[in-house]
């Protein structure tokens, strides 16, 4: 999966960071880091 495909699955305004009962969208920096980690973990499952 590519970052672009991952972003299409999870647009920035559709995913949230939750702290207790409060949710917010991610900053651009947070979103890029989250995309990178999600793509890596998706492409590198445990053997």
């Amino acid at each position, binding site marked *: 999966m590519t970052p672009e495909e991952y972003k299409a699955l999870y647009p920035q305004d559709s995913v949230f*960071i*939750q702290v207790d009962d409060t949710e917010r969208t991610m900053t651009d920096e947070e979103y890029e880091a989250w995309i990178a980690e999600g793509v890596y973990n998706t492409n590198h499952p*445990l*053997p």
Partner: protein
Amino acid sequence: MAFPTFTAGDILTATDMNAVGLWLIKTQTVGTAVASVAVTGAFSSTYDNYLITLSGGTGSTDQAIGLQLTGSTTAYHGFLNYGASTAATALGANVNNGTSFTFVGGNNANQMAHASCQLFGPNLASYTKCYNAAYQNGTAYGHFAGEHRVATAYTGFTLIPGAGTLTGGTIRVYGYRK
């Protein structure tokens, strides 16, 4: 009166209540499409050891779920013993100075997400131990144990899916009576 068996109308004495071993400290409902869920005010000096569970919601993709102590993004160590339900082969994976206790839960895509682990001493100024963590990622299952090698007291934690998001479900934090 002999605990733990009671009959209708019994008076609960201090002795009985002080023998209760597990107390529900906090309940947290998970929102919709969340990339992480932080739970504050979970750990205190009232308890040394804790049981954390997540159930009832769904994960958007095959994923493991990690646990990170609030404010600490490094120094997580441990080992996962796991295997796939399709093969009788024992497998392993290590966490060496990772960013979380990486394998405390998980799910199949769009199925119930879970997390379960015991934390020993998260609110003590010593290394936090993580035991009996129940890992899943799709059709792989296992157990994880580890420690967080920072001697600091923490009051909260964050559950973080390795990929995708979580929707719904309930996180419960229990304390083991000292």
